């Protein structure tokens, strides 16, 4: 996406959500908007309905854990198929209160993606029709992708850590 298109998109967002934008950057030419957590669903709905932007395809959503600043960021990536524009929106939630409204009313694809994010990071999506674990076993109590949990199963007996350089 060239700079003029990026400028145009940022202005489209600024029209309605001037106060909620934290920062705008463009790593590797990919427009990324860091946004305040409160108005994320109205923003995505606005981009969905906007007659020029038409971001009606949800590419991906995931969470990122930043343990030093105790935040869990949510990344939403949208794609406008008509114009071939891509945009990434990130919001930042506190680690101990990672709650955000659900996107399933706009995109049905967000259903399982949010369940996966809940399973891995413990982010609660308000309004989700069926928020429970999807990939891990049902009775797991920790959220394994958070940085404080180890990768290996600590109860295994057959692999000696010193042989693997741990």
């Amino acid at each position: 996406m060239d700079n003029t298109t990026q400028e145009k998109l940022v202005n489209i967002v600024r029209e309605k959500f001037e106060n909620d934008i934290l920062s705008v950057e463009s790593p590797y030419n990919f427009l990324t908007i860091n946004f305040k957590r409160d108005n994320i669903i109205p923003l995505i709905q606005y981009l969905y309905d906007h007659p020029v932007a038409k971001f009606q395809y949800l590419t991906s959503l995931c969470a990122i854990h930043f343990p030093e600043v105790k935040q869990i960021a949510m990344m939403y990536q949208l794609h406008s198929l008509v114009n071939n524009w891509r945009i990434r929106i990130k919001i930042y939630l506190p680690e101990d209160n990672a709650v955000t409204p659900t996107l399933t009313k706009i995109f049905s694809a967000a259903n399982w993606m949010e369940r996966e994010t809940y399973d891995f990071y413990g982010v609660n999506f308000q309004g989700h029709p069926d928020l429970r674990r999807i990939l891990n076993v049902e009775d797991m109590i920790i959220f394994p992708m958070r940085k404080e949990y180890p990768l290996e199963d600590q109860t295994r007996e057959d692999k000696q850590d010193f042989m693997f350089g741990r």
Partner: protein
Amino acid sequence: MAEENINHSITAVEDSKYSTLNLGPTHPATHGIFQNILTMDGEVIIHSEPTIGYIHRAFEKLAERRPFYQITPLTDRMNYCSSPINNIGWHMTVEKLIGAEIPKRVQYLRVIVMELARISDHLICNTVISVDTGALTGFVYLFQFRELIYEIYEEICGARLTTNIGRIGGFERDFSDTAWAKLDKFLKEYPVALKEFENLVKRNRIFMDRTIGAGPISAERALNYSFSGPNLRAAGVDYDVRVMNPYSSYEDFDFIIPVGLNGDTYDRFMVRQEEMWESMKIIRQALDKLPDGPFFSPNVPDFYLPPKEDVYNNMEALIYHFKIVMGENDVPKGEVYHCVEGGNGELGFYLISDGGRTPFRLHFRRPCFIYYQAYAEMIKGTNISDAILTMSSMNVIAGELDA
């Protein structure tokens, strides 16, 4: 275990006219391990409750502990039917992060390998659809050609299925003469066999009656469920990452995007069939226009292992080799997203690097995981035999579903 999930969103289970059928996780019809608990009224499906995660191997957490070149074998095992596409997609992501310039020859060779992988993935899916309708002949005859493709992979990288093909920056060796000879043999013999298979099923009354109208999905619902790849193209939307966001010189090649009408099983079968023909066209064009040049990019010394003669004779090469293998090279910080057209759709890699030797966060945008959600909606109201066909025509690969 998973039986407890059935009470979450089912309307009338206590009603005695409905029966419950457990499909999976080990079932010959589900090509992969995932479970569906079906509530049925006779043969018609009222509700289905999918459960996945039976092969969850924690790829994303594992990737946070591995240096970049060690993540390639992980990507192999996601969509294991077309693993070169995953490998090359990952290499391109890292090359985008470090800003490497890849020579034209490498890009064309990558295109040839990726299209071969696409042919092998679609081959499995189409023959399995025909097996599920009862036509086992296609499976037995066409699998011989998968052996030919495996032999080509073996010449290039040494492995058959989980290839770990190429390196960050190119290929580890140029394709040998045997590889070119085998590729020519494949391109000569495969169209004959594919045409025979097509003549068996394409206008076959039984096959068409079975598959037309089985598991349809409209274009609007498909877009809302973020479908991509052949499943979306069968519904009528011509979104192909190779055309919309071209990578690795795909813009130099001339090919069409086959698109279906109704999004049912027949359309998905035909889209994959036509894509195999288009892939062969692309491979022939790449072979004709293949430029000369290096088979690796010379300006990524921090990631591409130097040749062994230099390592043993040259101090600088020895140091580079040591630093690459021990993982002491620094990587630029940043976040990058790169997507390729995998066998099932838009396969995306979202990589955040904090400068260390391993990624800070790596998220795989797996097309299977995203479009399998729609399965429950697609089979509501159909018979169980159509549901089985729909599942095999969607080409759900368990490794990509769970990661």
